[in-house]
């Protein structure tokens, strides 16, 4: 087995790749090596993979029903029967956490999926077109950046009513400006490049250049930013849930679980503490992953 393995490695790491695919694979392999040499980044990746696995198949593995109230077993501390204890309605916290992981993941992904394309679109158009288009779009972005995120999300939720979708909309409205800024900075830099001019000379239309050239080149920094932002979005979603504005009971949304543990905090600490730890773990994982990715894509970043 050894000779085949080393020859694959040499093939990937060669200084003279024979095809674009080989070069791309080689670059991806090098990046993976750098990423995996950092134990913290791998920890972040591990936690996220665990989250995905739990969200995907966890509900099938968990024995207890997250919605089932067994009042006789209210507020049992963590132990053999209930690994993370039960809440004041006798519901098993572990299974609620597992089911809630789907909500957390779904909401965070939804926000990112909404926000990144919009921000990218605005930013790349602004940077590429320059002039008055740039100024106008950037003013709008600046204005949007100056608003307080959580407070605006609260106001929106107040008007739209509580619920997952409304929470997503509310957060998305204030989350796009950083991506617009980022994309603009990158595309400003790239729009002056010679190969863009060459593409224009060859007859490429503006939309084609934007989509096929500029957007892919911005993508690495956008990916890094999005990963780091996810941590904040998870916290914001949990915050909204804490205030009762996210998924409604009896949905096992993690932020709401923490809130419901407030009243029994002094006697049954696990009801509020454990869901909070879960939020912490996921947020931390995104931060670690994002730091690792930034290190790989942009090693100049200080220290």
């Amino acid at each position: 087995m050894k000779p085949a393995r080393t020859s694959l490695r040499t093939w990937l790491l060669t200084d003279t790749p024979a095809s674009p695919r080989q070069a791309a694979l080689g670059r991806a392999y090098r990046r993976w090596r750098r990423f995996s040499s950092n134990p913290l980044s791998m920890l972040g990746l591990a936690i996220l993979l665990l989250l995905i696995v739990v969200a995907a198949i966890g509900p099938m593995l968990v024995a207890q029903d997250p919605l089932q109230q067994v009042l006789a077993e209210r507020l049992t501390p963590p132990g053999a029967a209930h690994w993370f204890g039960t809440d004041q309605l006798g519901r098993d916290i572990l299974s609620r956490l597992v089911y809630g992981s789907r909500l957390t993941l779904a909401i965070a992904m939804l926000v990112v999926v909404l926000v990144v394309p919009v921000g990218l679109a605005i930013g790349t158009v602004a940077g590429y077109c320059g002039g008055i288009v740039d100024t106008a779009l950037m003013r709008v972005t600046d204005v949007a950046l100056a608003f307080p995120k959580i407070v605006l999300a609260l106001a929106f939720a107040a008007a739209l009513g509580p619920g997952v979708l409304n929470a997503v909309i509310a957060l998305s409205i204030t989350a796009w400006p950083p991506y617009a800024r980022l994309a603009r900075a990158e595309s400003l830099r790239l729009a002056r490049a010679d190969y863009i001019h060459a593409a224009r000379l060859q007859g490429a239309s503006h939309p084609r250049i934007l989509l096929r050239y500029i957007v892919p080149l911005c993508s690495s920094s956008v990916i890094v930013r999005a990963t780091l932002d996810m941590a904040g979005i998870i916290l914001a979603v949990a915050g909204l849930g804490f205030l009762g504005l996210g998924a409604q009971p009896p949905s096992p949304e993690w932020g709401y679980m923490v809130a419901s543990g407030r009243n029994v905090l002094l006697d049954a600490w696990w009801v509020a503490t454990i869901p909070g730890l879960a939020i912490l773990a996921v947020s931390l994982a995104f931060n670690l992953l994002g730091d690792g990715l930034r290190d790989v894509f942009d090693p100049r970043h200080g220290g």
Partner: protein
Amino acid sequence: MSAVTFIERVRAMSAHRDGVRIGLALAHWIAMLVITFTGLLAITFFIGRKIPIDPVLAILGDRASASAYAAARLRLGLDKPLIDQFVIYARDVLHGNLGVSLLTANPVIDDIKRVFPATLELATLSTFIGIAIGVPLGVAAAVKHNRIVDHIARVIGLAGSSVPVFWLALMGLLLFYARLHWVSGPGRIDPVYDGMVDTRTGSLLIDSIMAGEWDVFRNAFSHIALPASVLAFYSIAYLSRMTRSFMLEQLSQEYVTTARAKGLPERRVIWRHAFGNIAVPLLTVIALAYSYLLEGSVLTEIVFAWPGIGSYLTGALLNADMNAVLGSTLVIGATFIALNLLTDALYRVFDPRTR
């Protein structure tokens, strides 16, 4: 830079060419202020009038009498075109009329005047702690790059962006209040001391010192200690991370080598030269940190029953008190915007390179 040199510089800048440039910059800044604030007004208007199915019900609640309903409808101008409605709304706001709260039956502006100082006191104290600990930590982490201090700073920075603030607040209450009894519990002051001290600055701590009421001060302090520490944690994380990043960038610059080649003691190289170059960006970061704390207070005050604008907003939310919600949003939003634009202005005034 001393006050004298500052004044001399301003006078020197009044030379015609510079004067025009400054005038333009000022006009630009004011334009941004107006546009951003109008944007905020537009958003709150939109939330209040356009999103609810029946904006009058949203404002009056569903138990209003028919005549009150009709009067409100007229007042809001709901039969007029959108632009007119917005103008009416904007005019009201600029005159300080934010409507009447459903819950307290007071004008919202009066409610906010009552509660905002509590939030400001909390945010200010937390920011002071954040600066006092976070900035030196960041400098130390940059100077002793990749050593223990640096790793500690990075862990704190990581924690500051991963720990949910409402959860940390609860854990703080659990540990320091319930188990260790180191601090007082929720609330700003024990009921027995409430009202004992005249409100002069809005800060209970300062007011009680000014009145010489040491018992009140001690009690107020033991109530603010925990919420301020929780918020300060995030301040420290953010400020130390920014300071470290700025300092690392400066320490690799050539002028630092020159300063060392001059034989200056390392302390002077770090503080007078490197830190001197980040002082202005750091000020803007501090202003931003303050604005983040205002936001963080929304989630924290409810945990500590701290009677600030955060509690007011969340209470209004739970009771569907639309005027109060929007009024609070406007005030917090306006403060946020003002701080953001202030940082922009600070940068332009103080950095010699941007002149």
